[in-house]
């Protein structure tokens, strides 16, 4: 099987992650922070170790400003809903995922307005100047994906962050497609809130996510409950991370995420990035030679994450995805990829397209196999 759906989740994990899951299932399933017995302390230590690793990985100044969530959607909801107030205004791009679009849309009922900045119709990219031009006095949040989940398009995150810092507007970066392959530093990129999944590029398990908070950034919690701290008080504790982490944490998932971070640190982010960029370039070059195949988004692999959107003329993308899987053993995702405005931006709505996305464990052989499969489908409809 050739798995090219890393943008949805990383199917292949490093052996050390599988080993850590097995070990964690056997030794870390006590409740962290909910007791003084040794298994609970061990679970608490494992959670803390991953928190420290994540803080170092993303340049988070204080370890407790790394918040564990269930996934990137959970992180984005906390960031978006927690940072706005009635009468406020949000700026976002047309390349966002529904995990941004839907919370923003739902906030309309609370009197929170928004402005969508449309990406370039060819690349999908926006500029910091475009984002700044639509700021209003009541703008309380700027949201931007680091790399689009459809076309892979890189956004100028550091420039947008600098602009937001200059205009004193909080900046939320959705790093769902970039975390684990591209350097992200909260301070250097002026990121106030960083949301990402634990199960994609960070190579952890489904059911894990992160929200990293910059200094002084204090979204309103969306849930209250037990934290294992200040238990005599009926108010939610103000101290981080407890303020946002009510309920039992996914200890096994968090421990596995720590193993994923270890693997990435050992491999080196630059090595991972170069590998994925090379695979992406190979795929782009191969697709460009196939008759009837249209590729969307930036032309150069260096201008996008390892995510490629294309269509085969005369073939519905869902049929293409089905045939790639059933006839050629190639796993891809078709349709709108939960990003309807992104597809409107690059002209692939309403049908969407076929998406191939690579992770660090994909190989050149995977890409060549996928290209052979697309060639066969293309030939079947062009002849």
């Amino acid at each position, binding site marked *: 099987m050739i798995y090219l759906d890393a943008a949805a989740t990383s199917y292949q994990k490093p052996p050390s992650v599988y080993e850590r899951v097995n070990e964690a299932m056997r030794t870390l399933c006590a409740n*962290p*922070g*909910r*007791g*003084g017995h040794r298994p609970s*302390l061990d679970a*608490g*230590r494992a*959670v*803390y170790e991953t*928190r*420290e690793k994540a803080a170092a990985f993303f340049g988070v100044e204080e*370890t*407790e400003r790394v918040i564990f969530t269930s996934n990137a959607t959970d992180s984005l909801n906390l960031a978006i809903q927690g940072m706005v107030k009635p009468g406020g205004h949000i700026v976002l791009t047309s390349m966002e995922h529904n995990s941004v679009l839907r919370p923003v849309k739902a906030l309309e009922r609370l009197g929170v307005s928004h402005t969508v900045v449309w990406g370039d119709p060819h690349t999908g990219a926006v500029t910091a100047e475009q984002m700044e031009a639509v700021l209003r006095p009541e703008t309380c949040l700027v949201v931007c994906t680091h790399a689009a989940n459809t076309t892979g398009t890189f956004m100028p995150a550091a420039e947008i962050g600098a602009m937001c810092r200059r205009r004193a507007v909080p900046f939320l970066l959705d790093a769902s497609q970039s975390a684990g392959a591209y350097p992200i530093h909260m301070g250097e990129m002026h990121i106030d809130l960083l949301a990402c999944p634990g199960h994609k590029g960070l190579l952890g398990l489904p059911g894990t996510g992160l929200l990293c908070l910059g200094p002084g950034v204090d979204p309103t919690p969306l849930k209250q409950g037990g*934290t*294992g*701290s*200040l*238990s*005599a*008080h009926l108010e939610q*504790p*103000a*101290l*981080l*991370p*407890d303020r946002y982490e009510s309920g039992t944490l996914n200890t096994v998932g968090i421990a596995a995420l720590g193993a994923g971070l270890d693997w990435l640190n050992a491999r080196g982010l630059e090595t991972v990035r170069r590998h994925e960029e090379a695979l992406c370039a190979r795929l782009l070059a191969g697709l460009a030679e196939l008759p009837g195949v249209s590729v969307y988004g930036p032309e150069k692999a260096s201008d996008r994450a390892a995510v490629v959107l294309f269509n085969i003329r005369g073939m519905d993308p869902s049929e293409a995805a089905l045939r790639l899987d059933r006839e050629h053993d190639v796993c891809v995702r078709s349709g709108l990829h939960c990003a309807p405005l992104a597809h409107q931006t690059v002209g692939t709505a309403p049908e969407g397209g076929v998406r191939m996305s690579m992770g660090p464990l994909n190989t050149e052989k995977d890409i060549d196999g996928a290209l052979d499969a697309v060639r066969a489908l293309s030939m079947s409809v062009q002849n």
Partner: protein
Amino acid sequence: MIFLSFYTTTHSMKGEAEAKKRGVAVTMIPTPRGVAGSCSLSLRFDGPDPEQEGRDFFAAITVPCTLFRLDEEGPERLADRGEHP
């Protein structure tokens, strides 16, 4: 007994990791009831001069915490920093 009480598990773990790094002998214990009104975790100092080690360690870290002495007469607050009940 000399112990350092924290208000979140994360800070307790941070404290333990820092103690290990500095070679300070500590044991993680449930915070004694009646001290912090909490079910959090504390670090008990186990070295030959626990009070001095506790005071030195308290001065070296930055997170909210409270240093206590606990004997037959009850708990005595020796030093504290930041939020506490």
